[in-house]
């Protein structure tokens, strides 16, 4: 596991979840599926056609279902539907209990039994933990936090920052 002392922002890796047009500058976003500001950020990034990598930063005392939601997105990702689950989670943040997650998995055409086993698996937990710990070490303290050119912008970024991603 290693410690949690300060370290640079982890560079993009092949298994990071990236969306948006390839010709745009890449932002790295630390977010939590139960955070309303993260849903707002997602809308704004989509509206301007930004490109970003999404990393998990679930803080359970604040958002009790954020961890489960992050694992659900990863489990959907194992069936090639990460971003579809991402959208389905952010679209209805008040419904994140297990039956709601199964419902989404079914709606997305996933193998629900496999989805349910995967989202509780050690591999998925390790993937979410990796994102969280990398964020902590890079100084992330709130969601969302958007890194543009390696500089952290906590909260929903203002128009000047968003303009650099458009």
């Amino acid at each position, binding site marked *: 596991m290693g*410690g*949690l*002392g*300060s*370290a640079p922002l982890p560079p993009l890796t092949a298994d990071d979840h990236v969306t948006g047009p390839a010709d745009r500058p890449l932002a790295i976003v630390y977010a*939590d599926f139960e*955070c*309303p*500001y993260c849903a707002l950020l997602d809308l704004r990034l989509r509206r301007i056609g930004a490109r970003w990598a999404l990393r998990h*930063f679930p*803080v*359970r*005392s*604040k*958002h*009790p279902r954020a961890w489960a939601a992050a694992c659900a997105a990863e489990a959907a990702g194992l069936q090639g539907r990460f971003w579809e689950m991402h959208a389905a989670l952010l679209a209805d943040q008040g419904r994140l209990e297990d039956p709601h997650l199964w419902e989404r998995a079914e709606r997305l055409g996933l193998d629900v039994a496999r989805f349910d086993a995967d989202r509780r698996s050690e591999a998925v937990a390790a993937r979410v933990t990796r994102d*969280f710990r990398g964020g*902590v*070490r*890079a*100084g*992330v*303290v*709130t*969601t969302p936090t958007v890194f543009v050119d390696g500089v952290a912008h*906590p*909260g929903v970024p203002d128009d000047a920052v968003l303009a650099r991603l458009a």
Partner: protein
Amino acid sequence: MSVRVLAAGTPVPSFSLAREDGGTFTDEDLRGRTTVLVFYPFAFSPVCTDQLNLYEEVLDEIRAHGADIYGVSCDSTWAQRAFRAQLGVSIEQLSDFEPKGATCRAFGVLHEGGFPQRALVIVGPDGVVRWSYQAPSPGDLPGANLIFDGLAAAAAA
């Protein structure tokens, strides 16, 4: 006016803070343990994921370093208790309500506005400050990474 948090190597002054259960927490309570004191300006500050929520998420690892952690503000114990309940965190809160800000002043973190600067202080088992950090402004939330930097520095001191 520029107050600065107590630097590493400084013995902790005598102080007394109120605990949520009505008891007191003094410099004597720092003896024999590594302690992380988290000074924050106000209960109920309107940020989405609060500093204390993040520290709660890594609480087990802070304790694995043999350290205890407390939040300190000038709010009353009643406000702190309600704040802690609202955040859903277990980190004990210590109140510098009366005489207001006396402990914060002794630690060099009392803002001229009458509230603590956002600061972290790590005190060794011998009652000496081992590491400290003061945020550039009350709106800047110190990451949990800084606590672990501090605990590493404290262990090496």
